[in-house]
């Protein structure tokens, strides 16, 4: 994984307009083998449009996309042979069984019988789906449908895997199975691009692009992005979280105070300096405080502080 290879995906100045409005504007991105690149952003920021452009199911107005050396705009058919795309709603045949759905997609991609059986067995095993091979897709739970969609998308060996909100409505166990499969693909050198609104999922990506109104506002590893977080966070655990938040929010040096179940997260300018002040103010008000510690910001903390602008829904 160490030698800097040529990127699998090269995107230059990509722009797509609908009517007068630009859904994607001047997007530039390189993605290497084995990377998991995550797009995060508010509704309507352009995530799904980018996925469709990369998948060669939509043509850009400007810019270029090259995947495995193939010009996606000029030769979409050829490009698609390197790509597997799983849209938000994957088109499973609800009246066919799990096995029959896999067969169908394997035929579609022209996969040899020997290879498809082995691959299907491995993917179904990794996702805990083996006992359900004879069940109709329509009778699977939401999580199992998503896993079957992924299995069908991966029945051929793509160089690039595009996943649009793959785990919406999927429980954490199934989500782990899902990521286990993705990590296996990473190790095989597949480049993965994923759009998600869930930030615990974003934490699992190797790099993230934060989109705002069709533009990439920030792009870096999750760790580097977290260092952009303005201020520091102190977690204060207390049974009187609501009172504590009121008090903390009014103090000097506090930029924000967020209720988190049985604790309050205070965003402050300087944790070292403000911790004692917070504790003293809470003591004065008679609020009992348990643990107090400085914590690393989550991607969600960062997202909210970087991408929220005044009055925006």
């Amino acid at each position: 994984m160490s030698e800097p290879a040529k990127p699998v995906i090269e995107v230059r100045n990509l722009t797509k307009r609908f009517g007068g409005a630009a859904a994607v504007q001047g997007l530039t991105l390189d993605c290497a083998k084995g990377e998991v690149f995550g797009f995060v952003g508010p509704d309507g920021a352009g995530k799904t449009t980018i996925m469709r452009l990369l998948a060669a199911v939509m043509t850009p107005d400007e810019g270029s996309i090259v995947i495995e050396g193939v010009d996606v705009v000029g030769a979409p058919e050829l490009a698609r042979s390197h790509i597997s795309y799983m849209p938000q709603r994957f088109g499973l045949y609800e009246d066919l069984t799990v096995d029959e759905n896999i067969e169908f997609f394997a035929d579609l991609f022209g996969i040899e019988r020997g290879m498809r059986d082995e691959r299907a067995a491995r993917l179904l095993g990794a996702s805990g789906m083996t006992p359900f091979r004879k069940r109709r897709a329509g009778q699977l739970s939401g999580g199992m449908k998503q896993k079957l969609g992924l299995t069908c998308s991966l029945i051929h060996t793509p160089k690039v895997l595009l996943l649009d909100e793959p785990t919406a409505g999927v429980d954490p166990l199934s989500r782990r199975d899902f990521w286990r499969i993705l990590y296996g693909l990473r190790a095989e050198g597949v480049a993965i691009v994923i759009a998600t609104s869930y930030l615990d999922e974003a934490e699992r990506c190797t790099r993230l692009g934060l989109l705002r109104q069709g533009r990439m506002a920030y792009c870096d590893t999750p760790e580097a992005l977290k260092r952009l977080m303005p201020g520091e966070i102190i977690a204060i655990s207390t049974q009187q979280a609501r009172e504590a938040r009121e008090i903390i929010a009014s103090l000097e040096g506090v930029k924000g105070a967020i209720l988190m179940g049985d604790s309050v997260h205070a965003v402050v300018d300087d944790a070292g300096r403000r911790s004692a002040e917070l504790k003293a103010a809470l003591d004065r008000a008679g609020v009992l405080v348990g643990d107090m510690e400085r914590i690393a910001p989550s991607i969600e903390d960062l997202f909210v502080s970087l991408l929220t602008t005044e009055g925006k829904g």
Partner: protein
Amino acid sequence: MTSPAPASEIRIAADKLTKRFGDFIAVNAVSFEARAGEIIGFLGPNGAGKSTTIRILTGLLRPSGGKAIVAGFDVARSPERVREHIGYMSQKFSLYSDLSVMENLRFFGGVYGVKGARLEKRLKFAVGMAGLTDRTDALVADLSGGWKQRLALGCAVMHEPAILFLDEPTSGVDPASRRRFWDLIYSLAGEGVSVVITTHYMDEAEYCNRIALINAGKLVALGSPSELKRSAIHGEILLVEGDNPGAMLEALEGAPAVRDVAPFGSSLHIVVDDAARDRPAIEALLKQRELQWSRIEPIKPTLEDVFVQLVGGDRAKGAAAP
């Protein structure tokens, strides 16, 4: 909202609540209490019985056994009275797309029998809460996910319910809107409303006062997020970070000291019995495979670690097998 109730008032009392469908036990002797102003999160895999439990508590489904008192009424005997005191919001939002914001609120107000001066007062409250004061004539179809979500919440509280049931209310809503939604939930809870919410997302579960973890119809853990992280898990978590987590995962799965292992970004979470004792064995295993790591250290379990261990014990072992 509901007049501030004493913090001790019990709004939901479920005692060995059970629901059978034929031979299948969907809800198995679930007992818990929820107090005024408390936010309880129901967590569990798809099909664990969360929605069935909520349907019993909202009086939509009769329990096969056990008892539940909701807002002072027995759900089996007086489901209509229960429904007068609860609000319900599903993941589908159930709004009328071709009606305006105000028309939707009036409709739901009417369904709940809110009339006259009280209706006008509640309309004003709901519109203000949703932040839709300037857009009361907008069609719901034209609203983004975040606005729709806040409007759906407004519709669910038109009749000032004492208890609010929210079934995956934030599916497909972006993080900034989600946080704003939680501000609303907290302000309702602050006025004494009890909230029961289901979610699949751990970052959201962290917002709840207490979490009820449900698996195969049973309540397997009940406590605050920090209590669960502190004491619900067996063993300890070692975090390993390196360039090739995929290969590390493969090397560690099924290894003797490793109870479970899962990827987290560029790192892995390894469940072991004793982090200090088992760490050398894990390092040796990685060295043997010539896998480099930049960091290896014990960490506090995350809520997801707790969830996966309590709910997925058997599954985790199954997935580790070849």
